[in-house]
């Protein structure tokens, strides 16, 4: 059994009688996980992290870091960035790192090493205010790593960055994951969670509507895409097949949902037996985006939005 890093119990934040930002949230994050907190804007991700980091007061519930409770000194073992990177604008990267290490009680900070890791070493003596957003974000990651923390928390780390910056930050997060650290990351970018996270929870209006591992969520789909020389015959045959739950025609391609116990290959065998030879058959992994929207739909009658095709 893996060590528990974070446990929350009925965590609730009510801003006013009308606004319930986080609603009885139970989360468990284990050591070594890259845990994504997913949700549309305003679903309570940042508020949740704010409560876990002591900057937002709780209305109800409790949380425990490393199984030791919620004492502020436990945060010295957490590297966290909420929303924007916040630093003293007139201090350089190196000087800002000194302030951070002073707070975290680090006697000999490995500032140079970390600045090299995030590629800011050359600019370490320039004031923070002269940095681009991407550099600010990278400095934030470097200072989050200062205390050699067991767990890192990122809140929409790629928000507002250009594609190159996004790629850099993602690579950095992957590098940090490989350092055997636990990562908790809030994001509304599903693609990001899919690429980076091992586990995730979905929040909607402050309520947890799903939690599980990313791979489970991705393999559960049974959608198969098929094309044949004559799509009309293909469709007729498929309509009679007991393994097919539903059929959807997209131009030449037929998309079906398989019933339990059927796979793409057993379907192919069935089609051959019925005289249809396919040109193309592929079992689709759903993207997390589809899963996410499906979850939101299940829990709320969001009107169906066409999903852009990503492959």
């Amino acid at each position: 059994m893996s060590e528990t890093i974070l446990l929350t119990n009925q965590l609730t934040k009510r801003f006013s009688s009308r606004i319930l930002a986080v609603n009885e949230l139970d989360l468990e994050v284990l050591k070594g996980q890259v845990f994504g907190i997913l949700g549309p804007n305003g679903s309570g991700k940042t508020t949740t992290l704010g409560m876990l980091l002591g900057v937002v007061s709780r209305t109800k519930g409790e949380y425990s870091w490393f199984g030791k409770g919620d004492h502020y000194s436990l945060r010295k073992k957490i590297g966290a960035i909420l929303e924007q990177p916040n630093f003293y604008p007139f201090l350089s990267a190196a000087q800002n790192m000194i302030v951070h290490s002073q707070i975290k009680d680090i006697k000999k900070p490995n500032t140079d090493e970390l600045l090299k890791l995030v590629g800011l070493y050359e600019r370490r003596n320039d004031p923070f205010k002269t940095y681009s957003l991407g550099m600010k974000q990278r400095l934030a990651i470097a200072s989050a790593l200062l205390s050699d923390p067991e767990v890192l928390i990122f809140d929409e780390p790629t928000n507002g960055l250009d594609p190159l910056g996004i790629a850099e930050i993602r690579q950095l997060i992957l590098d940090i994951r490989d350092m055997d650290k636990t990562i908790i990351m809030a994001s509304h970018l599903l693609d990001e969670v899919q690429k980076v996270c091992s586990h995730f929870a979905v929040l909607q209006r402050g309520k947890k509507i799903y939690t599980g591992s990313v791979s489970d969520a991705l393999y559960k789909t049974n959608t198969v895409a098929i094309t044949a020389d004559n799509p009309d015959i293909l469709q007729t045959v498929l309509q009679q097949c007991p393994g097919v739950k539903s059929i959807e025609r997209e131009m030449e391609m037929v998309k079906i949902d398989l019933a339990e116990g059927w796979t793409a290959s057993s379907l192919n065998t069935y089609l051959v037996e019925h005289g249809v030879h396919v040109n193309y058959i592929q079992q689709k992994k759903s993207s997390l985006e589809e899963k996410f929207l499906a979850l939101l739909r299940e829990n709320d009658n969001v009107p169906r939005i066409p999903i852009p095709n990503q492959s």
Partner: protein
Amino acid sequence: MMNISKIIGLEYYKFRHFKPFVIILGLYVFCFLISGLSIKSLLDWIMDKQKDDDALSYFIKNGIPLFDFVDIWQNLAWLATIFKWIPAFVIIISVTLEYSQKTIKQNIIDGLSKKEFLLSKLALVLVISIASALMLFILGMFLGLMYSPVNDLHYILENLEFVAAYGLEVFVFLCMAMFFAFWIQKSGVTIIIFLLYTACIEFILTSVMQFYYKVPVWYFPVEAINRIIRVPFQKYTLEFVHDRILIQDVAVALGWAGIFIFLSYWLLKKRDL
């Protein structure tokens, strides 16, 4: 758990390279010293202009004993209180900047408690207060040894409590500035409201209450701060003045310091960042 050197060091590392602080504090020292050093020549010049004034004839003959030991400490301490607004700006900026840059939020996230954050600001207040008292002591020694006819060690050290009283006055005033900063959080608005209140609003209010309704006003904060060191100069026209520090004045001022510190803590604790 609490680590004093960490808390003082924190402010030092945050602001040692912040130019506005260096400039404002430099200005404070400069104004303080230059005015202290120029009073003598200014008074001499006024006396010279007013040669024929009968009322001043006594002083013209003998000079004003402004810098005589024993008297000098209260005189200088009272004169120096006008400069306490300058370090108040430093405190206001140091607190409001943490809000505008959201660095207070990051400090808390990084594992500082709200109490430690408040103590770090209080440490800055304390250091400035002690430095102010020290500066007054050095200036007083210098001017006294230069101009005072009495140079007896016994007289030099008498009334030295006014130096400590000046430190206390600056301390309470800076605590008030700190509270305004924690309360309002925006630097510009804080400075305007703090200036308006300390220099105008309370003065008008207390004057009206005192002279119109005959109500005592000793419990107002700025009034309490100003009362620590009473105006010494009427004694030269042979009026009665308090030439001692009154224990009740100190108690009221300390009470206000406690209230400002507590309110700052309460606001910090209560509000989400």
